């Protein structure tokens, strides 16, 4: 794998050197390519991204050779502690004083939206990996934002349509009662109905409720086939646990709308078997991903999640852009990123649209039963591949000002 990457890198480098530089190519600013990475390293989102995300980015820098055109690549990283003002002031400081060339945003939508605004003001690229808010490419889009790994619309649409096609026609939603949960529920419900399914009802549970038993009883009374979990993180884990306890999983199938492999690891297969979920990437999906995940596991001690893979892939993509254009000038690299495809272990045929959305295929997964699984992290079987242009917000629906209609 390393040879492939090396060859690919050399080839691209060769292309970069031989290509006639565009009139505005300015070379590498400050003689160094600085990457800034701000994510949650110690709080509720630290497992799915966190410090392991830093390792993933380091791997991308290593694979790019540690330098481009003789200029070193440096990485700065910080913990935003899920506070938007910490993220935003760090981002400002880095752009103003450390001359950071690109900002990578980790988990938490509020911080990513704040960082995107800063990047837009400073006219530097911002690549959001961990946040799910589709606003990043709609009402709050900017020419400098790239939303890379996934968003909540894709997850909702993917799970909704694919599960209905797989036979799960009647749904009941357990929704976390705040904007994010409502959005997940609404997007999935619309797709379910469009595909000919039926929504029997929903119950809104307060965010962070630890006991879901009452809500689950109401779900069971609805006699729907599928229980849609429009929540995330601890809420998802608690609702799955309770669903098992009350025997709900014997009459209904669970469909998690935002689930990461770390959640499955913490719940265990007996509790999650046969659950549906949509993911943008799985470590076992092809040879390239397996090979990369092995290297990741050797450094970090566990298999990567979609976000950590996204960290790697987006930085590698950015660095390719720098190599190809010969500069780290924001506009030049943004232009390159929006006109070239991503073909690596993360996505095949992925591309960045004018609204900043990186469109790539998503996958409907079903969690294996304990018998089917051969060991830790062997959790998913791919039920369906969901083509990117079908599950992401279509340009015609976009509320982004950059999209010409």
């Amino acid at each position, binding site marked *: 794998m390393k040879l492939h990457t090396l060859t690919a890198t050399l080839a691209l480098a060769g292309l970069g050197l031989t290509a006639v530089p565009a009139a505005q190519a300015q070379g590498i600013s400050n003689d160094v390519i600085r990457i800034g990475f701000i994510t949650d390293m110690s709080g509720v989102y630290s497992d799915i991204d966190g410090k392991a995300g830093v390792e993933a980015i380091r791997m991308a820098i290593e694979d790019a050779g540690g330098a481009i055109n003789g200029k070193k690549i440096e990485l700065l990283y910080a913990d935003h502690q899920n506070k938007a003002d910490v993220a935003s002031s760090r981002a400002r400081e880095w752009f103003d004083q450390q001359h950071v060339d690109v900002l990578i945003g980790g988990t938490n939508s509020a911080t990513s939206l704040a960082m995107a605004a800063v990047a837009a003001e400073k006219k530097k690229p911002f690549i959001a990996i961990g946040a799910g808010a589709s606003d990043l490419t709609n009402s709050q889009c900017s020419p400098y934002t790239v939303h890379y790994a996934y968003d909540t619309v894709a997850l909702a649409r993917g799970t909704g349509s694919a599960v209905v096609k797989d036979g799960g026609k009647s749904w009941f939603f357990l929704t976390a009662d705040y904007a994010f949960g409502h959005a997940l529920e609404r997007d999935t419900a619309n797709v379910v109905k469009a595909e000919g399914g039926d929504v029997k009802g929903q119950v809104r549970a*307060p965010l962070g409720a630890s006991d879901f038993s009452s809500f689950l009883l*109401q779900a069971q009374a609805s006699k729907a086939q599928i229980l849609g979990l429009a929540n995330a993180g601890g809420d998802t884990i608690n609702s799955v646990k309770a669903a098992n306890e009350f025997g709900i999983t014997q009459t209904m199938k669970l469909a998690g709308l935002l689930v990461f492999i770390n959640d499955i690891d913490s719940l265990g297969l007996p509790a999650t078997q046969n659950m549906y979920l949509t993911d943008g990437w799985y470590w076992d999906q092809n040879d390239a991903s397996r090979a990369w995940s092995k290297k990741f596991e050797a450094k970090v001690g566990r298999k990567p999640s979609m976000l950590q893979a996204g960290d790697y892939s987006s930085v590698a993509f950015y660095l390719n852009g720098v190599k190809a254009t010969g500069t780290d000038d924001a506009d030049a690299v943004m232009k390159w990123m929006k006109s070239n495809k991503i073909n690596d272990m993360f996505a095949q045929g992925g591309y960045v649209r004018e609204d900043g959305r990186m469109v790539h295929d998503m996958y409907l997964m079903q969690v294996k039963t304990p018998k089917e699984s051969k060991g830790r992290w062997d959790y998913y079987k791919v039920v369906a591949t969901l083509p990117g242009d079908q599950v992401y917000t279509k340009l015609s629906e976009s509320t982004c000002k950059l999209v010409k209609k």
Partner: protein
Amino acid sequence: MNVFGIPMQALFGQLLLGLVNGSFYAMLSLGLAVIFGLLNVINFAHGALYMMGAFVAWMGLAYLGLNYWVMLILAPLVVGLFGIVIERLLLRHLYRLDHLYGLLLTFGLTLLIEGLFRSFYGVSGQPFQTPDLLRGATNLGFMILPIYRAWVVVASLIVCFGTWFVIERTPLGALLRAATENPRLVEAFGVNVPRMIMLTYGFGVALAAFAGVLAAPVLQVSPLMGSNLIIVVFAVVVIGGMGSIMGAILTGLGLGVIEGLTKVFWPEASNTVVFVIMAIVLLLRPAGLFGKEK
């Protein structure tokens, strides 16, 4: 037969579930009341110690291969011991000062404990299976009740009423209550009051840890499991007033049931209903439902 559009059977089911949650509230507010009664300290760390109980139980299962029943006894003892160490080393020196320092210390301890566990174990939580004996559910006719939940109610009621009995009806309890009223006098009688205080704190902490072990199979065993719960328990304690042990137990159970009902009729409000009730009680009966003005 429908009550406000909800079938009677479903209602009974939700009431029972409310009772289950209420037993957690009862145990936790009981621990807080016991500690406050004797030490005049609000143990903010109660939530973190509840979490520690669950974690120690998990550690026993995962590292030492012990089973749930052993951990049900062992975990509270271990965490209780930890509580005794805290009292001895830290809290003891704050009694002569303003009460708010005790609150601030336990707040700092909460952050420290949660931060350490988060640092070592991450936040996704640890898998914890229900013990074999208690797995499965029985069909009560109006709902399917997991056996484990029934066990939670039984265990907490035994522990709560056991504690009440010891404190209100035994000589030891009488000594404790006397020390709450007038420690100097009790000490003059030759009773080792500082040791009593130390053991009381340990006991209160052990109660929290016991609740944690009970919670482990049904909730996510994560370092954050106690932090939002403790604030609700505080509200419960304000509503009940800290004058009586029975008051703390009954208030906990009662609020659990009310919360359960809210989840049926108005689910979105179920996390704030306890606070609203607290506001109402403060307006009408500031000392709390069972409180005695000190």
